[in-house]
């Protein structure tokens, strides 16, 4: 009887585990809880493997980070951390394409701005002019060993020192027809730029999709893997998962992660589990 109970318990646990995994997953764009192609679960997994610290809700940011990476930030919540990193001579890397980072850039005193726009190019990596190939145009330590990068529906940057630019056969596809038309001038557009702020450095990337899982699912994507490795290659790298899209979750996943991120939630869960085990022993189920 006990064996059958154990098997039943095991099955229940497996079912609960599958349900838990399902409830924790989301399809929110760039969410780190999104294991799909448009999430950043793969990137965050890679970051943790490379020793980066993921700053998630409920955890305190590290004080001595020399590199702080924000993906599609929204609002100015990250300002104190970013200021601290810049004051310590570190680098703040911001990847954004819908202009949500402009507010943060402004309060940090950065001149660079993300200009939302549909940058397209005749130099395309895939069968879509929005998969833009761009070349490194200036030296920077995060671009060591990087020559060509592939972007995925990027916007462009005004201001700062251009580090990576599109080819001259590129345009802002206002009408979305995939070809340069009236008012869509061919020219070079800046996709990665940097700006010195005090002792630190801000690097702005006009495409948060560089960190999307779909970009990791292509075997050969020029120097994109090298760029990601370079970005994570520093003494103390902190990747933000609080103030931007990586923290997003929808539906049940939102509730699950809200509860999980609450400091007391772990204690409650452990307590409940202990209660269940104690009950099982008391009723001689186990």
């Amino acid at each position, binding site marked *: 009887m006990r064996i059958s109970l154990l098997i039943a318990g095991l099955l229940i646990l497996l079912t609960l585990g599958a349900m838990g995994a399902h409830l924790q997953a989301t399809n929110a764009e760039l969410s780190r809880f999104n294991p799909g192609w448009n999430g950043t679960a793969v990137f965050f997994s890679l970051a943790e493997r490379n020793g980066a610290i993921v700053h998630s809700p409920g955890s305190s940011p590290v004080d001595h980070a020399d590199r702080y990476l924000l993906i599609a930030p929204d609002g100015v919540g990250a300002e104190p951390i970013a200021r601290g990193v810049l004051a310590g001579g570190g680098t703040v890397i911001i990847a954004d394409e819908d202009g949500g980072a402009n507010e943060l850039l402004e309060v940090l005193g950065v001149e660079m701005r993300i200009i939302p726009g549909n940058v397209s190019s005749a130099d395309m990596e895939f069968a879509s002019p929005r998969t833009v190939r761009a070349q490194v145009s200036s030296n920077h330590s995060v671009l060591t060993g990087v020559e060509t990068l592939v972007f995925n529906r990027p916007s462009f940057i005004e201001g700062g020192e251009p580090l990576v630019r599109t080819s001259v*056969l590129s345009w802002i596809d206002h009408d979305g027809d995939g070809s340069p038309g009236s008012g869509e001038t*061919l020219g070079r557009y800046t996709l990665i730029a940097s700006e010195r702020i005090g002792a630190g450095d801000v690097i702005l990337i006009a495409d948060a*999709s560089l960190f999307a899982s779909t970009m990791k699912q292509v075997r050969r994507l020029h120097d994109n893997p090298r760029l990601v490795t370079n970005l994570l290659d520093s003494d103390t790298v902190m990747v933000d998962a609080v103030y931007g899209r990586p923290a997003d979750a929808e539906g049940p996943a939102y509730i699950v992660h809200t509860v999980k991120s609450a400091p007391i939630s772990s204690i409650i869960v452990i307590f409940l589990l202990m209660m269940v085990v104690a009950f099982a022993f008391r009723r001689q189920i186990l």
Partner: protein
Amino acid sequence: MRRDAKGSLPTLPAVAVLICIVLLLITPHAASPVLYTTKSDSFTAMHDRVSVLRQVSQDNTGIALPLMEEIFSSSGTLVLNINLRDFESAERDLDDYLARSRQFDNMVVRLDMSQSDLEEWRRLNAQNREDLTSLFEDTQRFSELKRLEIEYRDADNPDMLYSVMYEGEALRSRIKETVTSYEGRSEEMTGVSERFGVETTPYTQSVDDARSLSVSVEDEQEERSTEIRRVAPPRADRSITIGLEPAEVRYGDILTISGRIIGSGSQDVALYLDSRLLWNGTAASDGTYLHRMSIGMIRTGMHTLYATSDGAFSDVPAFRVIRSPTSLTLASSGGGNVHGVLLSGDVPVRDAPVRILSAGRPVATLTTDADGRFTGALRLSEGDHRVVAAFDDHRYPLEPSWSEEVLVHVPPRKESQGVGGIILYPLVVLILLASLGGAIWYLRRQSSPSEPRVSVMEERPDRTEEEHAEDPGPELSPPTDEYGDPFLEAYHAAVGSDYPAALRHLFISLAGAAGLPDPAYATVGDIRRKQPDDPRLHAWLSAYERVLYGGHTITDADRDWFLAEYLFLREEDA
């Protein structure tokens, strides 16, 4: 057993019908059974799902910009060699230049950049191409005149000497016009090129070389004219005039050329357009002549005309052909064919080549008819293709034009289309319907003859133990006497409602009487084989078959006969 047997009969056809309906519903989707693919979920507002897109790795800038520089380089060496009168090398340069220009044109179309700065560069280069082609041909011809001049002077042929002089004059005028045109767009061309970061030094050098070429041709022609007039003064007793109307023409216009012969002699007149014979005619009795020329395939720019008649030469008036815009439409005619119209304003462009391009690759060259219409088949593989039509023949005074992109569907080959499109689908439907009909027929066939058997089974073998206990029913063994015949009782019970079933009871009784081991499953043939020498029994069995299987209508007399004969046969057995 009884419930199963009864239940299965209506269920099977129902299932068969359902299966057939399902098959019919899914048959149209059989060719493309995929309901979901990763490609159907391939992009959001922020990203493309690159892992499902075709990786093309196109570095078009790496092709286009060097190509532009190569075009400039070719034009530089071309003008240099023309200037040096090395026409063999110049011809090679021109071929190279034209090939690269064509490659660039196709690239602009392939990249769908017909509204971009790249198109502006292409347009300017197309004009340069016309000028350089013209410059090469005219300068080469101008150089040949030197040889002809010496030849005619040696032959003491003043008419031909004047012809050489006039042709030289015409060529000088055209070369000057061409160089002016080439030089005139250099600033614009340089500006556009610099926006792309293209090196323009070879191009600006070619403009300088073209300018010096024009100056040298001017000097040479001046010298030639002076010399010819010195060695062969014009006839004083005879002259010919020439006039043109209008001075500027466009494609489709009529240029009127008229003049008059003054003096005695032949009335024959020859008109030369750009030093090439245009028309041979005869003047009227008063010496006037008239020719109307339709402007068709003739280059843009200045052209010269002169008339000659029996040693008299006219002046060399010039007229200008102005370039006109064109419009080009393209439409799919189905089956991999296209049609379209090429117009210059409202004027159809006739006998003009229209190239059809798919992804920048020419797949057909069609020729317009008198109405400017063209039609034809494309050399394309099966499937969908986006094609454009292009008209860019610089021999016409017409601007290049491109049609809108058109989707052309090339159907599968005729054989497979015949099977797949016409026969296959109806065939599948027919097969399914036939299967359905066959299934129903089979089930009905199975159920019809077995109904009596089932009626017997209902009463005898399938009964439960309790039912047997309560109602023993008729035995399958032959009855011992007429009054205890359970089959007869069953017959009478059923005769009012289902006569064939009732008759079946009698048949089973006779089968049992014939000594067959399993009367309920016996056939008419079994009884006949068992009792081969009983004609009355055979007659009863034949009548029985007609009723049961032939569907014969039964009258009361027939019923009486069946029963009487049955009783007789049973009595006989007893």
